[in-house]
């Protein structure tokens, strides 16, 4: 099932991440984080791996991180993708 529309999940609260996703022809992941220097890459890898698990090969993803642990990142990505897959109402 493909991403059909723009969607988001998560929040900007402490320990959370806001995942914004929209359809695209390639895979781009942009990470905004106060800890980007230390964790930017790890966040990107976790998001990429979760997308791969879900079978999504192309998407434009923006991650605004507020110190989310991996379990949160994964959960927020899964929900953003599920919401993006829903047909436009």
């Amino acid at each position, binding site marked *: 099932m493909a991403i059909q529309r723009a969607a988001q999940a998560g929040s900007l609260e402490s320990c959370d991440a806001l995942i914004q996703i929209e359809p695209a022809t390639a895979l781009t992941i942009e990470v905004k984080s106060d800890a980007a220097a230390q964790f930017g890459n790890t966040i990107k890898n976790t998001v990429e791996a979760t997308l791969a698990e879900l079978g999504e090969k192309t998407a434009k993803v923006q991650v605004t991180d507020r110190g989310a642990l991996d*379990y*949160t990142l*994964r959960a927020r990505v*899964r929900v953003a993708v*599920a919401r993006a897959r829903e047909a436009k109402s």
Partner: protein
Amino acid sequence: MSVSKLRRSLLYIPGNNPNLIQNSVLFGADSLMFDLEDGVLASEKDAARELVRSALTELDFRGHEVLVRINGMDTPLGEVDLEAIVPAKPNGIRLPKANSPEDVKACDAIITRLERAHHLPAGSIFMILSLETTKAVLNAHAIATASKRVVGIAIGAEDYTADLQTERSLTGEELFYARSALVVAARAAGIQAIDTVFSNVNDDAGLVAETEKIKQLGFDGKSLISPRQIGPVHKVFTPDAVAIERAKAVVAAFNEAKAKNLGVISLNGRMVDLPVVLRAQRVLRLAGLEEQNPSGGAAK
């Protein structure tokens, strides 16, 4: 085993809040209840469900008991929640709106199916029920015994009071019958009785007064909405030094009588029969001084 676990405090944690979820083990509650129901916006139910599932699967809750309050069986969300959550192996499910034996059996059947499908030990996930209507209170024993998974019943005061067509008060007269009925039903069923939440997190004195009252009524514990409430509630349920000494004396007399094969136990000239011994053992448990060899009559 699940029925006798200490559950003085059952702390609700909003299921869509990663900060609270991952820090929940630091608060010292006897049980944690990750909430997918009233503590989550309707538009975020999917997000909360997945966050709690992810947390259960990936985080270590360091031996804490973890329940998930799913949505009720009166909406399709309840089953969707169970499908996601049961494979992630919570210790138990908190079922809201458990207002009839059918509600309980419906939830039990879904958990059973999912335990089988995911190769989990049958019956490993227990249930604590919230009874929230007048009909439920009248039918409390049938609801409490509708499934072997049920280890405790609770009262959902807001909905129940609305059903009574009155309002909640600090002194709680409107809840007296329901609370008593719940304790009686729980004891008859051999399970625990859990009281409703105290909403004013800034009113410590009010919380303590209410907790003392419901402890006297026979409740085993209370649902809480803030970690601040844990300390005061545990203090109410913890016996004082005098009570502990008395309990130790009773248990010592009982053990001595058992060892000497005496038919009658006496302490300070008074007869000590089984209910007294059981009460003393309960006091020691609440004080964290569990006896090594509880009598055969202890709760299951």
